[in-house]
Each structure stands twice: as C-alpha cells, then as structure tokens.
C-alpha cells in the first residue's frame, strides 16, 4: 500500500504551511483548506487519515479568513497537522535497506496523543520522583535496594524519555547513569537531578522544556562536563564509541529483555482481543524503543526487525488493519527472533561465538507482507459465550466424541468436558486451553478491557467541591424533612422507614464525597526526609528519620497547608533539638539522633507527631524570656504545659536570644497560627535531656465539624467539640467573684475564669441569669489556659457543615462561620479562642 506521489506532495505543502503557522503567520490558515480537501478526495488513504484531514479542514474553515484567532485554536490546528503529517509518513519499502540508519523522529510539535502521553508521564513522575528521592537517601545509607531502585529508575526514565521523543533528556539520563557507574556522581548530584526533573516536568510539552541546556547539565554534574558530547543519542559521530562499550550492550540486553517480555505479554492479550488499544500501543512503543536503542548501538538485525514490527503495529494503531491471528503469529515469531538475537548478543559480550539465525531475512519479509494480508474479523464475542462443545466441534473435534463425553458427564462423570476429551485423545490441549481462555475473558471483562492498573480520572478540585457542597445541602434538606413536626403527627412507620433509609444512603454518599478530597500525607513526609538529611549534613549532626503512617489520609487542603508548619518544626528539631554527636555521647546517648514523624487517626481526628530524642525544651530559659518580654509573671508558678505553650507566643519566639538559649521558637507562633487556621491544635511534650514531641491534632475534614449546640439567651451557638475540655453545672459555692466583676470557677482545684457568652454577645439589657442555672463549657484558649464559657443550656451534639457567613460581612470576631440547622435556621459557630480574647478586652 504505497502512498501515491500526489500525497507526498500534499504532505510537503502541509508541512510548509504548518511551519509558517508555527512562526505565527496565521493568515495562511485559509490556504490549508484546499490542500486538506484534496487529501480527502484522494483514494487509497487510510480512513483515519481522511477523517483527521476533514476535521482539520473544518477547523481551518471555522477560523475564517481574517480576524482574531485564539492562540489555542491555532495551536490545536498545528498539532493536528503534525499528527496528519506523521500518519502520512511513507511506509518503508520491503527490503528496508534505506532505513538502516532510521533516525529518531525530530522534535516536531507534539500531537495531541503525545500531549496526553506527556501529561500522564508528568503526573506519574511527580510521585515517582518522590520515591526516587527516598531511594537516593537510602542508597546513601548503603541500602542495596535503594541503589538498585535508583539505577532502575534512571534506566526506566531514560527509556521513557526516549519513547516520548525527549532525546536530550534521555541523553542526560544516560550520562547520569554512566557517571553513577563510574562513581563520579554522588547523592548530591542525584538530588540535583531529581530537583531539575521535578522543576521541568510541567514544561516538557513546550519546545523549551524539551531542551537540556548546558546550565542544566552543570546543575546536575557540578562542573561543565567537557568530556561528554551534548546528546549522545543524536550524534552519529560518537555513537560508535558508545556502541563498542560493553556496558551499553549489557544494559541493552537487560532492557531489551524487558521490552520483549512486555511485547509478548501484550501480543497474547491481542490474540484474545485484537482491538485492545492499550496493548497495541504498548507493543508499538516497545518496538519503537527497541528500534531506537538498537540503532544507537548499531545492532542492525534487531533494528530492522523492530522496524518491521513497529510498522505493522503502527498500521494496527491507526486502524488501517485489524490484527488477526496471522499477524499475531508472525509478531510472536519476531519476538522469538528478538530473544535469539539478544541472547546471541549476550554470548558475544561474554566472548562466546555466535551466528545470527538464518531465517531472519525471511521473517522480516513476512512481517512486511503481513501488512497486506486481508484483515480477519475479530471473533464476535457472543461466539465465546456459546457452549464449550460447540466451540470444540468448530476446532475440528468429532461431534460424536463430544456427544459421548456429554453423555459421560450426565452419567456421573464430574470432570469438565474439555478434560474428558483430552484424556480420550479426541481434542488437543491447546485448543481446549484457547477456548477456555476466551470464555474466561468474556466472563471477566465484557468490555474486553482487563487492566490491573488502578484507573484514575482527573477532576478539577472546584467541581469536586461543588459536588461536596451540594451533597452537604441535601443532607441538611433531608434532616429538615426528618425533623418536620408533621411527620411526627402522622406516625406512619412505613413512611419513617423509607425516610430513614434515604437518610442512611445520603450519609453514605456524604462520607464517600468526603473521601474524594482525601489524600495521603506520604509526599509531605517524604519532603521531610530530604530536609532532615540536608540540614543534618550542614550542621554536622547524625540524624535518622523514621516515618510511620505515611498512608494516613487527610483533606487535600490540610495536606497542602500542613507542609510549612511541619518543615518548620522538623527544622527546629534538627537544628535545636538534636545535639551534636559529641554532646550526645557525653550525655550517654547514641551519637546518631532520631526524629520520628508519625501520622495516625484517632478519635475522629488526624494526629501528626514530630518526636526527637534531643535535649528537650529548656523550661527555665523559656520562662526567663517570657518574663522579660512581659508575657509571664516572675512570681507565678507555671505548669510545664503552660511554659511549653509559651514557645508559641508571638514576639517571644522571634527574639534571637531565645533561639540561642532555649533552642526553640523561631516562628513558632506562625506555626501555631497555621495549624489553628486548619482548626487544629498543637501540643508539646518535652523532657529535658530526653527529647521533645510536638503533637498536631487536625480535623479529618474542613467542611464538617462535630459541635455542641448551646443556647444563650434567645440565640443558639455551636461550640466545636474539639475545643471543649469538659462541661459542668457549677455547684453553689464554687463560683467566686473577683472585685465584684470578674468571675472564676473552682473546678476540682483549677481556677477557671468564666466568660458570660450572653454578656459579650448580647446588647440586650436583660438581667443575667444566675450562673448556677446555666452550664459552663470549659474550653482551652490558645495558650493552655482554661476558661469557662457560661451558657444557658446545652441542647444537643450535632455534625454541622461549616458555611461562610456571607461575603461582605468581613471577619466577625468570635465567630468562625455559620451552620444551617435541621429546622432551616442558621446557627453561628463559636471561635472559642477569640471569644475568650474578647472577654479579656
């Protein structure tokens, strides 16, 4: 199926037009149309190509001859054109002679398919890079799996870059591999490489992102790598040097083996389902990579074979042919030949004699001819759902034999039909196996898609939030129905049951919707391991970082915002907590310090702990400083917890002297503020000489809180359960007034200041009820101090969806938001810290 000369001309014209379009001469859009139309009229071109051309012509026509054309549209058009050109590439002549040095495709604008690939690649690499970093750090510690992972990762990445036509990148990776082998590149270089790739992942689709500049190289290798060519894969003059290097051949043998294996696996899948796009693409890509690698190493036989196979797969990929049994057969033969060739290579490397197989030329010819075999329609699926016996008869088993076997089964033979026939020598095991495989396929995956990979859909967060919001609304609406007094009047058990059922379902949906926003904290933790390592090295300390519970899931927003506070606290632990090895040994501790990061779920909250076995907080120094700053009284005694909380006091923490003396506190007030913004709390436990631990407690989700509904006067408020320590009904005699104004409660020996909610929130002149008629909700303010908020009554405990109390209201002190209650009215959610603060003013 050779493409006629006219087509070739059109292709040239289109390429020219595309290039001028890329240069920005968008006036030419209209001149594309006749070319594309001519292409559509032409006979003998594949349908997919025709469709694409027609679509592009439509696009060009829609843009009109003049006027503003959105950049995006033009870019899309250019992409489409590049794809069209690519699909118009001439198929190779039979003998393949002229393509012996087939160069990898030039850096053309990526087609939309490639864009998709790139995007998927980038998003996958983001996670894998983190693993890579972990492995680098482990490798440094001497872990063999770390080293292995690093090497494997570099190698895979190199291959992937190659497949994605990012030649310069795969060149860079190749250099890194060599340098690593020669031990010229250490942990630092690998980390720099990781950072570089991480930075550039997002820009790989731009022409700029594809280029690895000299500076980039310098970033990775430290000094300008004068002895290395800029892009070995693209430079034929140096390729011979590399080809002669046995280490490359060894690499190729390993990598080639993997590709061959994956080709074989996918081919077997294709035999069952000839239109499985995923497998077709996989085989195509593997062949392409094999070809590229072989060309680079000047392994002509493998290259030619791979090229022929790739061409065949390309046709399948473009739907020009449907892969039939004969195609798969010849491809499988090619796979075997690959294996022989690679094995032979191995022998050659180890110095053993080897002769290339003689049937190679014939096989390549057959691969090319396979192109022209009439496509055999795929087995209609309903066929496989038919009876086993019927299918066997089709395979050539005598009908009488099948009937006999069926009769045997009826008479009590428990063996499956296939087995009876095989044992009777009537059917051959291969046929039976094939039919069974077909049947299994049909039973398992009616769509014919059978991927073990976890499939994901990327959804904009905004859309997700809208969904979660809407579900929250429906939960409220539902509880409004449930709470409707008319329902109680009806007293219809069946109706109630139905509503209860609906409520249950809705709750499930709500829980599910919440989980949509949950992400693991692993990546945040992994950043810490890098941080600890770098800092420890800088400070000449030996520190081991242990992580637990990296798979603990938190709300996305929480994970995003907890990073900074964590960095801060971990840095503090490294910098000020852990002592130098000398000090540690003097204190009778192992020279290597230990920092543990832990995340776990407990009691409806997520806990994150940062624990170190360093010198602990210096209580006296903190207190001294706090007194000096006027934040504490010299003659008052403070509990340890209170002193520790002083670390979070603003102003105190930024004083440099404190850092020098006590070792902690720079920016700790910011840490606390950030955590509180996430409605979390942070607690410190510390023992001098033993170590400290910071425990952060965070809500599972930001959208819902568990709250206690209280009444104060005529208003209802919600107190977040998380901030409530206890509730008490004050006994007579336990409340004392201070100078006639302030009130305190003696709570089991603790003096708790009382705050009358009614007084600070109400402008009414109503006489306050006696405290004894109300309830005291004891809360902890931000600094470890207990306060009691006096309310009239506790109504209930309830989960509420937090709502912003309306734009234009600004921030209202003492109120974090509103919640729609089951009767449809709004209740305000208290910010207890702020309420206590208002009372102190």
């Amino acid at each position, binding site marked *: 199926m050779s493409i006629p000369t006219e087509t070739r001309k059109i292709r040239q014209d289109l390429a020219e037009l595309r290039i001028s379009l890329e240069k920005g001469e968008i006036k030419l859009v209209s001149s594309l149309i006749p070319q594309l139309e001519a292409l559509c009229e032409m006979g003998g071109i594949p349908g997919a190509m025709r469709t694409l051309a027609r679509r592009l012509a439509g696009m060009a026509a829609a843009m009109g001859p003049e006027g503003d054309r959105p950049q995006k549209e033009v870019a899309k058009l250019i992409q489409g054109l590049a794809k069209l050109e690519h699909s118009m590439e001439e198929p190779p002549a039979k003998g393949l002679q002229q393509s012996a040095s087939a160069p990898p495709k030039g850096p053309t604008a990526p087609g939309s398919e490639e864009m998709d690939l790139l995007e998927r690649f980038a998003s996958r690499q983001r996670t894998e890079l983190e693993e890579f970093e972990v492995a680098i750090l482990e490798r440094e510690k001497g872990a063999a799996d770390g080293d292995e992972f690093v090497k494997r990762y570099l190698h895979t990445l190199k291959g992937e870059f190659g497949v994605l036509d990012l030649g310069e990148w795969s060149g860079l990776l190749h250099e890194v591999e060599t340098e690593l082998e020669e031990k010229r590149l250490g942990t630092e270089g690998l980390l720099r490489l990781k950072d570089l790739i991480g930075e550039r992942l997002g820009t790989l689709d731009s022409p700029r992102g594809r280029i690895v500049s000299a500076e980039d190289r310098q970033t990775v290798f430290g000094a300008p790598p004068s002895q290395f060519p800029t892009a070995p894969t693209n430079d034929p003059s140096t390729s011979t040097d590399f080809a002669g290097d046995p280490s490359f051949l060894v690499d190729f043998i390993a990598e080639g083996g993997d590709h061959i294996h994956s080709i074989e696996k996918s081919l077997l899948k294709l035999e069952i389902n000839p239109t499985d796009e995923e497998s077709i693409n996989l085989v195509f890509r593997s062949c392409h990579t094999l070809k590229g690698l072989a060309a680079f190493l000047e392994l002509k036989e493998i290259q030619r074979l791979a090229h022929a196979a790739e061409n065949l797969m390309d046709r399948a990929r473009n739907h020009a042919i449907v892969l039939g049994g004969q195609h798969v057969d010849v491809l499988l033969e090619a796979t075997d030949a690959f294996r022989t060739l690679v094995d032979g290579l191995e022998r050659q490397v180890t110095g053993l004699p080897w002769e290339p197989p003689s049937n190679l030329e014939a096989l390549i010819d057959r691969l090319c001819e396979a192109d022209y075999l009439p496509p055999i329609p795929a087995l209609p699926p309903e066929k496989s759902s038919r009876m086993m016996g019927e299918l066997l008869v089709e395979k050539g088993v005598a009908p009488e034999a099948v009937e006999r076997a069926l009769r045997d089964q009826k008479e009590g033979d428990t063996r499956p039909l296939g087995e009876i026939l095989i044992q009777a020598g009537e059917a051959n095991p291969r046929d039976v196996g094939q039919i069974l495989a077909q049947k299994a396929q049909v039973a398992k995956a009616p769509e014919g898609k059978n991927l073990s990979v976890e499939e994901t859909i990327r959804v904009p967060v905004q859309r997700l939030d809208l969904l979660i*919001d809407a579900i929250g*609304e429906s939960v409220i609406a539902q509880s409004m129905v449930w709470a409707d007094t008319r329902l109680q009047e009806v007293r219809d058990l069946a109706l109630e049951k139905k509503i209860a059922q609906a409520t249950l379902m809705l709750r499930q949906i709500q829980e599910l919707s919440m989980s949509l926003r949950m992400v693991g904290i692993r990546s945040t933790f992994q950043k810490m391991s890098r941080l600890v390592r770098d800092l420890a090295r800088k400070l000449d300390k030996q520190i081991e970082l242990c992580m637990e519970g990296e798979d603990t899931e938190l709300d996305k927003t929480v994970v995003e915002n907890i990073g900074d506070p964590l960095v801060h606290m971990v840095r503090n632990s490294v910098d000020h907590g852990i002592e130098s090895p000398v000090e540690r040994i003097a204190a009778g501790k192992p020279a290597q310090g230990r920092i543990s990061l832990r995340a776990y779920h407990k009691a409806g909250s997520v806990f994150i702990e940062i624990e170190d076995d360093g010198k602990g907080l210096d209580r006296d120094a903190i207190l001294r400083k706090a007194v000096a700053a006027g934040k504490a009284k010299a003659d008052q005694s403070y509990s340890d917890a209170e002193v520790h909380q002083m670390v979070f006091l603003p102003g105190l923490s930024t004083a440099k002297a404190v850092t020098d003396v006590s070792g902690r506190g720079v920016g700790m007030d910011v840490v606390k503020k950030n955590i509180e913004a996430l409605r979390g709390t942070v607690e410190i436990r510390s023992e001098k000489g033993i170590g400290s631990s910071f425990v952060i407690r965070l809500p599972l989700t930001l959208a819902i809180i568990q709250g206690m509904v209280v009444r104060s006067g005529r208003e209802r408020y919600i107190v977040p359960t998380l901030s409530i320590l206890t509730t008490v009904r004050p006994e007579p005699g336990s409340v004392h007034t201070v100078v006639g104004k302030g009130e305190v409660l003696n709570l089991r020996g603790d003096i708790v200041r009382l705050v009358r909610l009614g007084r*600070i929130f109400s402008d009414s002149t109503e006489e306050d009820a006696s405290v004894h008629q109300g309830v005291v909700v004891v809360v902890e303010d931000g600094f470890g101090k207990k306060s009691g908020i006096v309310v009239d009554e506790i109504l209930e405990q309830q989960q509420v969806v937090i709502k912003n109390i309306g734009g234009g*209201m600004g921030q209202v002190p003492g109120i974090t938001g*509103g919640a*729609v209650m089951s009767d449809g009215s*709004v209740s305000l959610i208290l910010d207890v810290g702020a309420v206590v603060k208002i009372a102190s003013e």
Partner: protein
Amino acid sequence: MTEMVANRPEVAQSRAGKYLTFRLGEEEFGLEILKVQEIIQLQSITRVPRTPDFVRGVINLRGKVIPVVDLRLKFGLDRAEDTERTCIVVVQIRHADGMVVMGTIIDEVREVLDIPGASIEDAPSFGASIETEFILGMGKIGQSVKILLDIDKVLSGKEIQHIQAASA
C-alpha cells in the same frame, strides 16, 4: 435641572431602565432591577453579635448563608415592627472580593417601573447632614418622587469597611 440632564445624555442613558420600587417608612425608593436576585418572605434571622445595628444577622437562603441588612436602620430611620408586608429583597452587589449576595429588609414592595432617562434627575445637595453619594438619582413618576439607590454603594465600600472596623 432638566437642562443639566440634557447636557449629560450619557448619564441619563445609563440611569434609565427598570426599577423595583419599595417603601421604607414614608419614603419611596427604587432599586435597579438587574441587581435584584429575588424577593423572599421575612424569615427567622440569626443575629450576629458585635456587628453594627443595621446588620440584622444572617439567614439560610437555600443552603447558602447570607447577611441581611435592615435598610431602615441603615438610613437612620426609626426601627419599625415587622409586619406581614415586610420582606427581604435579595440583591447581588459588587464588592471588593467580587459579587456578593445580600438581603435587604424593606417595609413593602411596590412595583416594577420603567423610568426613562429624562425622568431621572440628580439628587439635590442637602449639605453635610445627608449623604447623597449612594443616591443614583431622583425618579419622577407623576406626582411622586422615588429615590433611586446605588445599592452597590449602599451596601459596600465605606459601609463594609465600617462593619469590618467594628469587627476588628
């Protein structure tokens, strides 16, 4: 006056249009219809502590919590008992952070009027005692005069700063 308006046709043009008219005490007001999202019955309002008097509180508008402003108090009129005619006009106003939905409590809704530009005059100056910057113009309908409000200015800008100052 007429002359003045005639000299500034573009102003007259921009002010002409449909207005929702309503009553506050003895005075008649008009609100650009495009700013009005809906009119709802008075419902239970949750008071928000430590906010200016004219902020009556917040309500639940189909799951969204929105603030409600008492226009009587906003304009310094006497507080009045709510009647069955009292209602909440929900408006969309332009605020520094974008569009904001708010409720305004008014005594009674009258009608929707199409007021031509020629019937709208600038507000006269009353000296320092009365602020006129939130008045779009005075609409003359027959014998009556409607005060056309620039609701963006009424509920945002300075006043919002005021709320925020009160809450700071």
